[in-house]
């Protein structure tokens, strides 16, 4: 009797397992029958919102990139600006008036027409805090156009397909800024209809339209058949949220998803060796750096800063902590940006030279200092703690004793802005592919104000400042590039940083995925991507 009970229980258990195993199989057969091409992309986080003007995180932007389009956009593989919803544009001599000629016959997913009024509606919403549809923070608008209402004086409808934007002062990166996903054009009707909840009901002009968002699970998009640019290859694009790095990779291996981001550095080899998978490297638009607080002793001494540049073995860092998926940096700018000065000779790894320089600077026996390490992994610094420890060893070899300091992320950033640190690890990912977005933000004296510094080396050089401002006001890109190249030479000699690496974040996909070109900005539209069944 007892035995029978145990046995029957085990049988029941086995039954449940077989039942569900069968369930899985039938599910797969059904998809093959329907023959819809679906692209499933897994990311580590859920979008915060889907109103492109109001989000700043990569997870959200990845989704909005498929639904929305901007007036101008970046080329498929670099940050050069090409036509988007605007077919052409011209600017006045003084650089203050920009006229955009819009593409005709473009529709929003809700069927309303895209025109000059729609563009004006979007700009008015972003710029004006009192606009009835200004729900949210619109952070990127503030950053890129100088707050609210900012540098844009007026947006005028000239005729149905012509729009004129007037600036208060010239802004050289204007076009590059407009190509950012944040300045995508939403359907005015949808914004009016959904009000506060527009972030859950995005309506744009892109190749895919929004269908469903199950929080922390999936976002489903569907091909927009009336897209002006033709038909996308996929009937559906599905974004799945899989927070655990290993689980995400397993889903890719088992074929349940087509592509994933955020791969553990340790798993890169496994992806490379898997015959069913491919590893795509995203061109770098970032820099990881060690900033030296030039306002504090002994880092006010340029020889000390140069010595530290000689003391750190960047090549070893790249090999040890990036799985080879990064390049040692010699400039604050990543090489994928125009204006990059390739003629600069990096300080080579030379501990003897570092010691000699320290002695010259009056520190023959080195000194004691603090080395600040970020508490969180970033694309440009996947293992900050370990990197800090490696740097600590390099410094010790030349006599500098550095104690590693860390705080939670928010406090870390705050204290950095206040200039409380000595040596400080941080990095930057570009927003718009303009050198100004790196050099001015990170190394201009304007941004070295205690309490709000983004120039955490507190580096102040008037000549650099002059060049960066001149470049900001110049509209000829060749001239701008010259200014930036000159600025990089001065920065190199003054050595406020040790530029460490430019990482090239990997994306893994099934071998069947075709035509995918990872973009330096961190996300791309899947319009041209295809998949062989």
């Amino acid at each position, binding site marked *: *009797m*007892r035995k029978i*009970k*145990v046995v029957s*229980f085990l049988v029941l258990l086995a039954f*449940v*397992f077989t*039942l*569900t*195993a*069968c*369930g*899985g199989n*039938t*599910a797969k057969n*059904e*998809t093959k029958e*329907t023959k819809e091409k*679906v692209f*499933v992309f897994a990311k580590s986080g859920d979008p*915060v*919102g889907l109103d492109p003007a109001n989000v*700043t995180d990569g997870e959200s932007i990845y989704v909005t990139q498929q639904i929305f389009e901007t007036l101008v956009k970046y080329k498929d593989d670099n940050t050069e600006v090409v036509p988007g919803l605007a077919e052409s544009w011209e600017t006045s001599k003084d650089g203050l008036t920009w006229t955009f000629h819009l593409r005709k016959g473009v529709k929003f997913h809700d069927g309303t027409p895209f025109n000059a009024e729609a563009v004006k509606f979007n700009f008015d919403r972003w710029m004006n805090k009192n606009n009835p549809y200004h729900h*949210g*923070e619109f*952070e990127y608008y*503030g950053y890129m156009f100088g*707050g609210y209402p900012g540098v844009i004086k007026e947006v005028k409808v000239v005729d149905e397909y012509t729009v004129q934007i007037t600036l208060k002062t010239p802004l050289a990166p204007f076009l590059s800024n407009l190509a950012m996903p944040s300045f995508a054009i939403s359907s005015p009707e949808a914004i009016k209809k959904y009000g*506060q909840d527009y*972030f859950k009901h995005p309506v744009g002009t892109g190749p895919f339209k929004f269908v469903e968002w*199950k*929080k*922390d*699970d*999936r976002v*489903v998009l569907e091909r927009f058949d009336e897209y002006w640019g033709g038909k996308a290859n996929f009937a559906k694009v*599905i974004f*799945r*949220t*899989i*927070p*655990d790095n*290993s*689980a995400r990779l*397993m*889903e890719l*291996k*088992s074929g*349940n998803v087509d592509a994933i981001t955020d791969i553990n550095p340790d798993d890169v080899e496994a992806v490379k060796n898997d015959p069913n998978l491919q590893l795509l490297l995203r061109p770098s638009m970032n820099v990881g750096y060690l900033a030296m607080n030039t306002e504090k002793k002994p880092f006010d001494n340029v020889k000390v800063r140069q010595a530290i540049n000689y003391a750190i073995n960047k090549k070893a860092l790249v090999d040890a902590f990036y799985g080879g998926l990064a390049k040692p940096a010699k400039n604050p700018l990543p090489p994928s940006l125009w204006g990059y000065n390739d003629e600069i000779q990096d300080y080579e790894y030379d501990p003897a030279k570092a010691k000699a320089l320290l002695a010259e600077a009056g520190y023959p026996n080195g000194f004691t200092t603090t080395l600040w390490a970020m508490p969180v992994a970033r694309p440009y610094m996947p293992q900050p703690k370990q990197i800090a420890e490696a740097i600590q060893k390099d410094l010790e070899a030349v006599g500098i004793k550095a104690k590693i300091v860390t*705080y*939670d*992320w*928010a*406090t870390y*950033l*705050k204290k950095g802005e206040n200039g409380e640190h000595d040596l400080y690890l941080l990095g*930057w990912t570009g927003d718009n592919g303009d050198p100004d977005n790196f050099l001015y933000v990170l190394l201009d004296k304007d941004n070295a104000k205690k*309490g*709000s510094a*983004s120039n955490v080396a507190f580096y102040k050089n008037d000549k650099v400042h002059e060049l960066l401002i001149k470049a900001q006001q110049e509209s000829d890109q060749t001239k701008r590039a010259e200014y930036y190249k000159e600025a990089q030479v001065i920065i190199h000699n003054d050595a406020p940083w040790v530029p460490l690496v430019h990482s090239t974040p990997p994306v893994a996909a099934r071998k069947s995925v075709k035509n995918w070109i990872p973009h330096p900005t961190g996300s791309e539209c899947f319009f041209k991507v295809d998949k062989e069944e």
Partner: protein
Amino acid sequence: MANYIVRRLLQLIPVLFGITFLSFMLIHFIPGDPVTVILGEHASPERAAELREQLGLNDPLYKQYLKFLNNLLHGDLGRSIITHEKVLKELATFFPATVELTLAAMFIATIIGIAAGIVAAVKQYSWFDNLSMIGALTGVSMPIFWLGLMLIYLFAQVLGWLPPSARLSIEYSVPTVTNLYLIDTLLAGNWAAFKDALAHLILPALALGTIPMSIIARMTRSSMLEVLRQDYIRTARAKGLGEATVILKHALKNAFLPVVTVIGLQFGYLLGGAVMTETVFSWPGVGRYIYQAIMARDFPVVQGSITIIALIFVLINLIVDILYTVIDPRIRYQ
């Protein structure tokens, strides 16, 4: 009895008050603030100050707390700082996922745990007893995230029997009614989707259920052993009752009391274990939701969720206490 329940419900008020106070203090004393999280690496101090004011973070702590209490009394848990969505609404989407997972885990844990415990006790020192108690010991000491990954590796990757993550395969979409997928799929009359949802539930439920399963098995075993030595069991056997009746009816009923306590407690703890499980299995539940909220210093979310969870924890305890009287009529509440 009714009196007792009313009194217990009234006792909830100071308990919840204490919990909201403690959690409020705790989250506000962790360094870092949501403004930095929202504005990121770019923020200007003017903008940060403005936002801080807007979020009411400049008010003294006691004022913020009183405001929270006041809203709570009106059934309002506030809006998430990050997503601007109502906390109650977000909880309503995430909670069912966790409830479904927890119930499934508890179901597995109870059935297998009690069955194993009974058999182990009846067959004390047999190979089954030894094996299941070693298993129980291993189960208790196993980190959930590790167990979860191993389960995924074995059943999803090597054997390919069960899906490794999420609640439903992407080919299925069912209208949301209760947000309990097993029920929603049935309501939609989609049998294939139901089986798919069930398949998705097994691995995470197993991972989450392992610890309570082990604890329940050990508790059942020791409780059964004690009861089996009692005189009335000998009497029952002497009366000529069948072994199954003796064990399942006479022994189990009396051995059940401590087991129910443990089940009740474990049920509460599962809400904590859910954080790990939900992360490993990409289960969109409340555990992950709170974890993310803590990382983002999303005060209203953390505050609101803790309050609700505490409420549930306390209610489960109340139910357990009531069950006592049902199981053992000797227990009376004055």
